[in-house]
């Protein structure tokens, strides 16, 4: 899904202050039926993360934490089965998973002698049954499963998606008979920067629209939507570094990207939303 900047902005506009829930996503899907769910989710997630990054600090002041905790306690006191925590998160416009973490941390501080370590909390978020308080466990669980942007579940999903696409890409490369070195092999050889795949024999990708083709030395798979923010971060931390070492290469944003970002083709960084079909290999005309 390659979107123009304008299209992207239109979608992003709809995402202002929308809680990261299934319902929100469903509505979004109805609003933009032509876009795939995955693309919308990815955009949603990224926009939401930006939003959270901006507001993160204000939810972590001592006062805020105290106030949330009190509201939680009051809530569950009234009705332990009600989605107290989730509603609280939505009400204050914060990610449910993160809200759960705040409350959990605060809870453990109160009930344990030593301040809880990060790993303990992470572990409890992953498996709420470890939480000593049954009501809180339920509340936390509710938050985690309803949050489509944050939380261990989402992290796990993202990781899985990333891995899947790497495998997918690997299969495609094998299918096309293009030999490559993968990240692990590169690391073993002592490369200081490692794209997902370095082609041992470069290929040329022909662009139907443009006059010429582009040489590709490496391919990076990104199972996300390429928006400005993430792309610039990637450029700086990864893509240019790859170019500096291996020459021009290809980035596949499986969930699409903003068209205008594909402006470094001549320089040697090429964006695609899928595996290129029109490639020329050394010694053959078209594969």
């Amino acid at each position, binding site marked *: 899904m390659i979107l123009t900047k304008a299209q992207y902005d239109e979608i992003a506009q709809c995402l202002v202050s929308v809680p990261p829930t299934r319902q929100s996503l469903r509505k979004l899907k109805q609003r933009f039926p032509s876009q795939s769910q995955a693309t919308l989710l990815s955009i949603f997630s990224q926009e939401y993360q930006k939003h959270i990054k901006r507001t993160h600090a204000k939810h972590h002041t001592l006062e805020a934490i105290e106030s949330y905790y009190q509201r939680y306690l009051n809530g569950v006191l009234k009705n332990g089965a009600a989605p107290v925590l989730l509603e609280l998160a939505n009400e204050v416009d914060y990610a449910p998973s993160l809200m759960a973490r705040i409350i959990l941390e605060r809870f453990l501080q109160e009930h344990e002698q030593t301040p809880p370590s990060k790993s303990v909390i992470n572990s409890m978020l992953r498996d709420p049954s470890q939480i000593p308080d049954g009501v809180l466990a339920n509340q936390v669980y509710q938050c985690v499963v309803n949050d489509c942007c944050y939380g261990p579940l989402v992290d796990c999903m993202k990781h899985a998606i990333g891995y899947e696409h790497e495998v997918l890409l690997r299969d495609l490369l094998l299918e096309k008979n293009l030999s490559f070195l993968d990240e692990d092999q590169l690391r073993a050889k002592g*490369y200081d920067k490692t794209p997902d795949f370095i082609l041992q024999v470069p290929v040329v990708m022909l662009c139907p629209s443009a006059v010429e083709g582009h040489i590709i030395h490496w391919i990076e798979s990104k199972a996300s939507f390429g928006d400005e923010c993430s792309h610039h971060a990637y450029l700086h931390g990864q893509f240019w570094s790859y170019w*500096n070492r291996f020459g021009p290469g290809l980035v596949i944003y499986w969930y699409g990207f903003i068209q205008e970002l594909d402006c470094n083709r001549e320089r040697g960084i090429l964006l695609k939303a899928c595996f290129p079909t029109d490639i020329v290999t050394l010694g053959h005309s078209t594969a």
Partner: protein
Amino acid sequence: VGRLEPSVRTDHLSGRSWVRWVSPELRVSPVASGLSVSSGLRESRTDGRTSGWDGQRSGPPGAGSAGSGPGRGPGGSEEGAGGENGAWAGARRSRASGSPISPRLELSSDPPNLSNLEEFPPVGTVPQGPAGRTKPSRRINPTPVSEERSLSKPKTCFTSPPISCAPTSQPSALDTSPWGLGLPLGCRSLQEEREMLRKERSKQLQQSPTPACSTPESPIPSRTESLTAESADPARVSSRQRLELVALVYSSCIAENLVPNLFLELFFVLQLLTARRMVPAKDSDLESSQGALDSLEIPLFQSIHDCVFFAVQVLEHQFQVLSYLDKGTLKLLAENERLLCFSPALQGRLRAAYEGSVAKVSLMMPPSAQAVSFQPETDNRANFFSDRAFHTFKKQRDVFYEVLREWEDHHEEPGWDFEKGLGSKIRAMMSQLSAACSHSHFVRLFQKQLLQMCQSPGSAGGTVLGEAPDVLNMLGADKLGRLRQLQERLLAPQSSGGPCPPPTFPGCQGFFRDFILSASSFQFNQHLMDSLSLKIRELNGLALPQHKPGDDDGESDVDWQGERKQFAMVLLSLRLLAKFLGFVAFLPYRGSEPPPTRELQDSILALRSQVPPVLDVRALLQQGLWTHRAVLTVPWLVEFLSFADHIVPLLDYYRSIFTLLLQLHRSLVLSQENEGEMCFLNKLLLLAVLGWLFQIPTVPEDLFFLEEGQAFEVDTAASEHGLDSVPVVDQQLLYTCCPYIGELRKLLASWVSGSSGRSGGFVRKITPTTTSSLGTQPLQTSQGLQAQLAQAFFHNQPPSLRRTVEFVAERIGSNCVKHIKATLVADLVHQAESLLQEQLVTRGQEGGDPAQLLEILCSQLCPHGAQALTQGQEFCQRKSPAAVQALLPEETPAAVLSSAENIAVELATEKACSWLSANITALIRREVKAAVSRILRTQGLEPAARVERRGCSRACEHHAPLPSHLISEIKVSTSCCMQDVLSLAAGPRDPEEGVSPEHLEQLLSQLGQSLRCRQFLCPPAEQFLAKCSVELASLLVADQIPILGPPAQHRLERGQARRLLHMLLSLWKDDFQGPVPLQLLLSPRNVGLLADTRPREWDLLLFLLRELVEQGLMGRLEIEACLGSLHEAQWPGDFSEELVTLFQLFLAEPHLPEPQLRACELVQPSRGTVLAQS
């Protein structure tokens, strides 16, 4: 004759300023005010200076242009402040005052009151009124340069050596000339005036630190005015003879390298050629002078006609050099209507040279800003001291490229400043670097990137040569000039430094220069110098092709292409590295001014002389000269030295280098082309770069003239042929290394643009080339795509892989050609030989025009040459993969290996096939030609069956008579020889002369011996003997051999004749190993012998013919064919009839051999009579 020196004068009365061109020897009369022969030059010089090499140089150009030459920076003031510059200054002084070097051809029209310095205007100006005369110093009026038409004055005012010392250049006609007249004074005042100019200039420099922008602008109005160039007329040349002589002297000086810079002189000459107008010398001047002066004191150039005449004369002398200029320049020269008008012959030669010149259009390759690839072998953690160093360098690599990208994006934006934009980023990075001790890694990256980006000429802003202007010529003559100008700018945006631009860092080089300056890191510079020095040593010592492209040796041509390319690559890399080495090495010492006082200079010298040179360039130069590799070493050394500061040439170490270079320069006489000497273009390259070096501001002016020019001694003893004698330099390389040669073309082009209305020439006749051929996207074609992919493939592989593949391709390609030559071509030559035999048989003796034969053979065989390509392809496909496999590491991944193999096959095939397709026909021709002439030579144009040669029999003791004895007149054991016999038979002979039948028999038996002993028998001798024997047989048959004996019996007895014939038959059959031209027996001439005999006796002939058939020496059909063709000749009537009968008889004979019977029959004498009567 030298560089013209402008002396700026202002006519106070008219307020008009004007310039006179004056050289020490020549005076060029005033050139038009406000217009310029050199306006372009000056503009460009200004630009060149402002975009100077390090920013420090970007001083004010304004005043400098009044007298300083192109490329002569503000440093021209070096002598201004007192002139006490140590040895150099002293030396200069001595030259100025004492030597008779500057004979002034022209003298001022002043009354030669030489004793009065004030009254004698030294720079050859015409006398002012009395008022002007009293204050000579005022004449040097530093009016703003923009007002002046200052011709390019080179830094070194070329002064020819004393005329008396130059034997060739002293025409006797000038014995009484006033050349020596008043010379010392003239020189002194000249010097004085120059000093004054310099002082003024330096004053101006200090006063106006910013370049006067008006300088380049101001010529423009005058330029439009200048469009109406004065026409030059050969008939109006004022003193032809004198101009001719001066042109001769001048040309000789150029030819003998007595001028510092060859191209500067050419530039000057072209300026003369294209001068638009001359401001007439003031009438009063001429008038007043006319009476008082004799003809030789009149200014040399009195009119534009004189200028053009002189220029054309010199150009005629310099034609050889001109013919090596690029196509564009040749065209412009050939199109120049003045030149045509003054010397149609020269125009014709130029045009021929233009047409014969190979267009070398260099397609500008886009500067590939490819990054240096990461190689685990050298770049991974194992190569660093610590994790920290490893990770720091990781970041630095990224920062470096970030900076590079930023520079690429912004450096052309107006107002963007490198230091401001990137300086702090770079320094931050460098400080990290210092902390992490990874300078060597970074320097390696830096140097590799430098080579990668700047090595290709295109990225360095090189000019496109050849006929690119033709596209523009389509657009019409009116716009031509402007378009040309535009084109010049587009093609060479920053090459505007005139014929002697200061050293610059064009294109991407600027980035690296600025990076070094901004980084200002001592550690970095040191590491960089270490690394550059090492690389220079490595490349300079690289084994490069030593063999010449052989005409006779086809396959070496294949290698040759690649080797020449390799040389160019190495040379360009060396120049680039040396330039940066020079830049960094002399960076700490650089200042625009020389030390002001002698004391200061001495102390600096004392300091500097103890500093060891960064790289032992002197040793490398000496080594280069000894091993005849000057063509490689000198160009980069010049680059290195061009960055030297003012002190450097004074240091003993470097001074000796300059001495060597001067000696070398002197020795490079272009007109001498001896075997084993340096090739023309090699010399031209060296002359160009050395000439350029001699104009660099920091090189002392006098250097050139002070070194007494003993020619460079070539150590012939040690001369195994070095690179110098191999034509490694081509025009492309010459222009790439010396883009300023292109200024000649610009000058000519600006003439065209000025005289647009009349431009034409053969501009329009040239078929316009389409732009598509120039500018196609290489990636569009699948071939280009594949080539790019191949390049890309190597990028991330270890460098050894590339070397291996290229090596394999190179060798296999070369072997392939050898193989084709040994197989296909050899087969074709074989075929040619047998075809030739056939041809000779069918055409008989008269079909013998070798050229025609060759044509026939080639037309039949050359088409087979096409097979060479398929066979070559097959060969490369078969051989390359195994070689690649054997040479690459076992562990190479399969995909990499197979790609490498494919590329090797591809490259080898391309190499072989491109050579084959271009040369196979010529190769076949050459080989066939050789074979044909070999056959024709050995066989004496006679057909024969191929007979296997045999040696002597084993028992042979080689005592047989020598063939030469048999043939020649020397009579050793025999009393006569073949030739004697034949000549006797042929007559005229004395009545008492003759041979005895015994002699004949003896002769034939000796012949047999000779033939059986092969020791001394060479094919031509055997051929000759065969021919003689056939003729002898004919004589026998015709009974024409005079026999010694009683007068009544002059004829050979029949039995004897037959016996001799038998001997001959057996010789032919058994002893001759080469072909015997038996068909000659039936040639009209030999048969005609029979016609003279009375009565005619045919039986011997018939006998012979039958024996020939029987013994298998000739085929029946062959004889029939011969007999048949006999009818076509003109015979007496009765003879024809007899011939017909003979023919019938021969035909009537049964095919079965019945020798006995026949022999009996034929003896009957009546048979012959019957024949004769029937």
